[in-house]
């Protein structure tokens, strides 16, 4: 048991190994810092965290060190005394900031970081607004091509070296370096070796100032216009916690959200830069049908897909599926995509099994690309040292969740290959997909032909494809950014998604469509549905409570 004294307040830190920044944070005392990051090694180079430190001797006497020391580098031990609000400590902070601003261009109005810039924030809180610098500032040239997705505004860099340490310690590929010395030092890469590793985008989040910028987001929005929704990345089965930054129903940026239970501090570039399909205009905007549904405003040739309204399509789909189930339950089937949330899978399974107990449920295609990639890894792709980040080969977020729903409704877990084998016997199929376009066409021509023969084929997908052309009904699917619900990752961690944008004016989230089909009233309420699931399926019992920020382990 260790007691640290922060600004006269004793803090019991137990047996935790903390530095003074972390110990002070325990009682809400904020020590500003730039170079220190909990996931990176300590270099104590920015000197922003200077505090007065001393020691309380066993006899009660307090001996202070004569100079200020960096809090990030000072371990919190029993009897450590730390003072952050004295004249000396405050002056040290102000002096550090003045030094950092010596060569800083202060072009906040055109800087993309403005609004979430730590240099702005700390200058405002701890520094002063005027500069005594009279000499011309260093203006090293910008490096817009330092990475495929990353641009470096060299003059804004405060040389905290977080980005350099990230490429060395987390990614492992060590592209970024500090070149030159003193006030002329700058961040650079070797010629022809841009920072393009699969985790490169994280250096933009790590950069406390506007030096490293995300080219996909650059100049798109000022950050104070953005609204945030906490969600889960749908890119792979790691299920990284993310924040979706959006404005006016457009997703502008994906950022990692720290989650010690899921992935830690970072996300991979595949997940970070995959969002444009959410905003794509090529997605289905409204349902389509190939039958002349009642009250359809246009005279429609039977057999040709045309836009239709929800009011027409939902009852028709329900009626046709019910009729098919009456003729033979085993000839009706549904495919539950691993892109569905647990709630959605549950509702669809309930609907299909409600038509007939003999109806079959299949697990949708589980996309797998390559092998799990572990970081840090060297240039040849060999893992080095303890694993700090894993990009999984399974490129869908919720196989575990959908599997468990399927296991509850049906003894045997049927995979997608089984569906293809049985497709000839089917009368009706409700096929959910919703895979991001990055994964490419997911059905071969052969498979499409097999499925296209099913008389009543209902496809719920994001964008037109050969299989949707062959469908009798097409229902627009929603992406992760439009869903409320939860995903279960590879390690059975259930995490909550919150919708960020609306699926178009005519769109509906998948869960809402299933509610319509089930003839349940109202809008989808993920938490109420989770209560229901927790009651019915023992595996999901933990969903009854609050999932919190970090999610809960199931099973």
């Amino acid at each position, binding site marked *: 048991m260790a007691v640290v004294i922060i600004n006269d307040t004793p803090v019991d830190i137990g047996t935790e190994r903390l530095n003074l920044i972390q110990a002070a944070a325990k009682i809400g005392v904020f020590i500003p810092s730039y170079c220190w990051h909990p996931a990176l090694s300590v270099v104590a180079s920015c000197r922003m965290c200077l505090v007065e430190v001393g020691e309380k001797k066993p006899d009660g006497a307090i001996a202070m060190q004569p100079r200020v020391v960096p809090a990030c580098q000072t371990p919190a031990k029993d009897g450590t005394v730390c003072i952050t609000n004295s004249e000396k400590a405050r002056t040290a902070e102000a002096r550090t900031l003045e030094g950092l601003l010596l060569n800083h261009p202060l072009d906040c109005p055109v800087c993309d970081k403005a609004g979430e810039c730590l240099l702005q924030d700390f200058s405002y809180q701890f520094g002063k607004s005027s500069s005594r610098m009279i000499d011309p500032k260093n203006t090293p040239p910008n490096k817009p091509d330092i990475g495929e997705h990353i641009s470096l505004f060299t003059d804004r860099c405060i040389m905290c070296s977080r980005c350099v340490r990230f490429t060395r310690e987390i990614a492992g590929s060590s592209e970024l370096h500090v070149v030159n010395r003193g006030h002329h030092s700058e961040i650079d890469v070797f010629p022809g070796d841009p920072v393009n590793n699969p985790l490169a985008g994280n250096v933009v989040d790590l950069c406390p100032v506007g030096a490293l910028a995300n080219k996909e987001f*650059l100049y798109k929005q000022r950050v104070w216009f953005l609204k945030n929704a906490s969600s889960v990345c749908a890119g792979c089965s790691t299920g990284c916690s993310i924040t979706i930054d959006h404005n006016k129903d457009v997703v502008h940026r994906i950022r990692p959200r720290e989650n010690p239970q899921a992935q830690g501090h970072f996300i991979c570039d595949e997940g970070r830069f995959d969002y444009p399909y959410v905003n794509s205009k090529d997605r289905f905007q409204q349902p389509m049908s190939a039958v002349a549904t009642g009250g359809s405003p246009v005279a429609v040739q039977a057999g040709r897909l045309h836009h239709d309204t929800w009011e027409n399509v939902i009852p028709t789909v329900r009626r046709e599926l019910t009729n098919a189930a009456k003729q033979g339950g085993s000839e009706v089937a549904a495919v539950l995509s691993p892109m569905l949330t647990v709630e959605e899978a549950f509702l669809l399974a309930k609907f299909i099994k409600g038509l007939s107990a003999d109806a079959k449920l299949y697990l949708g295609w589980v996309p797998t690309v390559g092998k799990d990639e572990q970081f840090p890894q060297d240039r040849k792709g060999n893992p080095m040292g303890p694993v700090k980040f894993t990009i999984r080969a399974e490129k869908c977020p919720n196989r575990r969740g959908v599997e468990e729903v399927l296991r509850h409704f049906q003894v045997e877990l049927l995979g997608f290959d089984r569906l293809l084998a049985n497709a000839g016997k089917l009368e009706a199929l409700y096929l959910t997909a919703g895979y991001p376009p990055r994964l490419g066409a997911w059905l071969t021509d052969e498979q499409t032909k097999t499925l296209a023969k099913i008389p009543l084929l209902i496809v719920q997908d994001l964008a037109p494809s050969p299989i949707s052309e062959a469908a009798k009904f097409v229902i627009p699917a929603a992406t992760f950014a439009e869903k409320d619900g939860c995903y279960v990752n590879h390690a059975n961690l259930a995490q909550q998604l919150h919708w960020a944008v609306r699926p178009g004016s005519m769109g509906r989230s998948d869960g809402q469509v299933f509610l319509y089909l089930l003839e349940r009233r109202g809008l989808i309420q993920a938490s109420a549905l989770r209560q229901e699931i927790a009651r019915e399926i023992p595996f999901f019992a933990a969903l009854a409570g609050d999932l919190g920020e970090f999610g809960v382990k199931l099973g």
Partner: protein
Amino acid sequence: MPIAETDVRWVKAPTLGLLDRLYLPAIAQGLGTTIKHIFQPRVTQQFPEQRPDLPANYRGLHRLNRDTDGRVKCVACFMCSTACPARCIDIVAAPSPWPDREKYPEMFVIDELRCIYCGLCEQACPCDAIELTSMFDLTGLSREEMMFDKEKLLSVFDQTAGIGKDPVRTKGGKLSCASEPNVAGI
């Protein structure tokens, strides 16, 4: 909170005398005022033949200022659209084609119908790129026509900068060289 009875002061309507009720003296008084004004200097302005002389800080139609090279001065910082209480400034930023700055407005649209002419955009601008001029007689035949885009706003600058009526201001309260006639490249 109810008003205390002690705080209420009751006022009686004045009782009208015979003269008041005849109305004749009041009519004569009114005629007197009219006749007096016939001999006084005229204040009515014959708009539109005669243009009003507006104060220098009048807040009319916006303009987007040009720098001394004739380029748009705006750096697309969005400060104006952030400050705008009517949310009527729409900007699309892009990397600038010029080496001396990073960002410029690819699109800059002000909905002049939605604008309340408060002038906050002018105050917010860190580089004196947007200013309100003394042009007040905006007309248009459609709503679209009143969405002033970058070209239109720059042309307002071309019309107003050289005439000395709407000086281009800078932070120190000094006039910028662009406000001198025939310097702004017009």
